[in-house]
């Protein structure tokens, strides 16, 4: 069971981050204000760990503390290091730290990548172990309950839209300079997106007139590297301008026949019935029922994969026409976890429900209601229309954005689930507060004094 879980995570978490790390160069990630606040509230001289730090967006929030960033993905860690952060490569399940060394720990968008309950518990317990008594741990995980999207299941594979990321740094020399960043510490061209929501911040800023959390938007605006589009009322092409000249030309050089594209979308949507996950409770996220309308400045809702739907919009949409699916730089092959076993602990690998869903965009951050409603769903088919018999022939069409490529696994959390997990299985932690922050369940817990 654990081997299958590890295999799944390797294929749909680690390999994806590793492959997509080079593309994390331009687009700023969202730094959650409450996380920043948590870090800034730590006492000067504190030792802090960011477990699953990605490209390190939280590592320099507080200059009065020593923050160590750790991630499983070496390429992401390299990016963080290049920004001057103190970082290392390690495994959340086996943290290479002595007990009780850290005064505070953050785990932002990490635990939801573990595919079994035991592994999620193990990851949290490891963090509790290396936390000093009285120290605090903040955990953010993606919520199943979202205002503007519907997760059919808790265990999902969410496609990655490579289109939303810039070219690898080596090819995109000028991209970084085109998007000056408000935040002084981010002078480096690498403006890595959050590991789970690479581009949400770009859109976030545009919606600020509609958002209830204006304070959040301010901080996002300050931080985003897509400064052009982060201003309210920015002209609708702002996002595309921000992508950068070389990025746009990269796409237009691979323009595709639209009818071919549509055929591919129809094909890739349902899982092959012979694939192991077709029999599991994992679902591939269906297309969002949302439309993209260039006429509305606050159109673009958060989420890296919204652009996926843009790709297949009719040419009459104008500026979108050039934005076609690029050649996938790496396709995940059809390997699957070797064995699917039944398991009663809530692990999806034991489920047997067939899944027929469409691919969809990734949206770690909940978008505003107005933003997402303006999206137009491109294809008529949704999960009810999909034909389970269709095969995903991902190898045959090299010019199509392989919707199965870079799909990331998530276990999205139900309300109360994270707290329940801590109470039931991690008694060394005492929950101080919990809530929902932009579509994420978050918890702040404290290491009990009399432990271990």
């Amino acid at each position, binding site marked *: 069971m654990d081997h299958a879980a590890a295999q799944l995570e390797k294929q749909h978490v680690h390999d994806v981050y590793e492959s997509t790390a080079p593309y994390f160069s331009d687009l700023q990630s969202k730094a959650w204000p409450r996380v920043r606040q948590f870090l800034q509230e730590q006492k000067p*001289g504190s030792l802090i760990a960011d477990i699953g730090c990605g490209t390190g967006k939280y590592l320099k929030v507080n200059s009065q503390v020593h923050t160590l960033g750790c991630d499983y993905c070496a390429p992401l860690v390299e990016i963080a290091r290049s920004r001057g952060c103190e970082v290392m490569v390690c495994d959340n399940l086996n943290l290479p730290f002595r007990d009780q060394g850290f005064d505070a720990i953050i785990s932002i968008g990490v635990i939801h990548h573990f595919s079994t309950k035991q592994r999620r518990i193990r990851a949290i317990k490891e963090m509790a172990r290396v936390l000093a008594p009285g120290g605090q741990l903040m955990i953010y995980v993606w919520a199943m309950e979202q205002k503007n999207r519907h997760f059919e299941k808790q265990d999902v594979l969410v496609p990655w839209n490579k289109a939303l990321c810039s070219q690898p740094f080596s090819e995109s020399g000028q991209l970084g300079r085109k998007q000056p960043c408000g935040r002084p510490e981010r002078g480096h061209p690498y403006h890595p997106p959050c590991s789970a929501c690479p581009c949400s911040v770009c859109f976030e800023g545009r919606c600020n007139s509609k958002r209830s959390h204006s304070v959040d938007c301010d901080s996002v605006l300050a931080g985003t590297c897509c400064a052009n589009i982060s201003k309210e009322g920015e002209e609708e092409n702002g996002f595309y301008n921000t992508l950068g000249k070389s990025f746009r030309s990269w796409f237009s050089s691979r323009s595709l026949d639209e009818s071919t594209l549509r055929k591919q979308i129809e094909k890739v949507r349902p899982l092959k019935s012979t694939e192991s996950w077709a029999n599991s409770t994992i679902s591939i996220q269906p297309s969002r029922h949302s439309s993209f309308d260039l006429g509305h400045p606050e159109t673009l809702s958060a989420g890296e994969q919204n652009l996926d739907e843009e790709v297949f919009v009719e040419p009459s949409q104008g500026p979108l026409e050039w934005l076609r699916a690029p050649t996938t730089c790496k396709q995940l092959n059809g390997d699957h976890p070797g064995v699917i076993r039944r398991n009663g602990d809530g692990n999806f690998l034991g489920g047997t429900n067939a899944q027929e869903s469409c691919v969809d965009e990734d949206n770690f951050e909940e978008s505003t209601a107005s933003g997402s409603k303006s999206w137009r769903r491109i294809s008529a088919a949704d999960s009810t229309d999909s034909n389970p018999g269709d095969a995903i022939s991902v190898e045959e069409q090299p010019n199509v954005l392989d919707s199965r490529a870079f799909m990331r696994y998530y276990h999205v959390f139900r309300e109360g689930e994270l707290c329940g997990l801590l109470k039931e299985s991690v008694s060394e932690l005492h929950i101080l507060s919990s809530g929902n922050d932009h579509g994420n369940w978050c918890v702040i817990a404290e290491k009990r004094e009399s432990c271990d």
Partner: protein
Amino acid sequence: MRLLTHNLLSSHVRGVGPRGFPPRLQATEVRINPVEFNPGFIVRMIPKVEWAALLEAAGNLHLIEVPKEPIQGYEHNEEFLRKMHHVLLEVEVLEGTLQCPESGRVFPLSRGIPNMQLRDEETET
């Protein structure tokens, strides 16, 4: 990797438990990065340091003499604090290795980044 970070590291090869601390540090490339001296920061950091591990690591790097233990009244001893600031924050190991003192397992340290990942067979419980 700074020595303050090293002071937190422990090998987690299966079975070694607390004997995995501290990893033995060898460096082939070290760099000194000037860092602004913040005495308040250092004062607060001192109690958190595992001193023996720091002594051993500083010794392996052939650094300036680190006091055997925090000086009495160190909070007001600027010379001491500056020395500790240098050792903990300004010395960066760019290339080297970290060795588990119990199992001998060697972890690489490259481009300033220690990699403490274990292979599956080293971790399975």
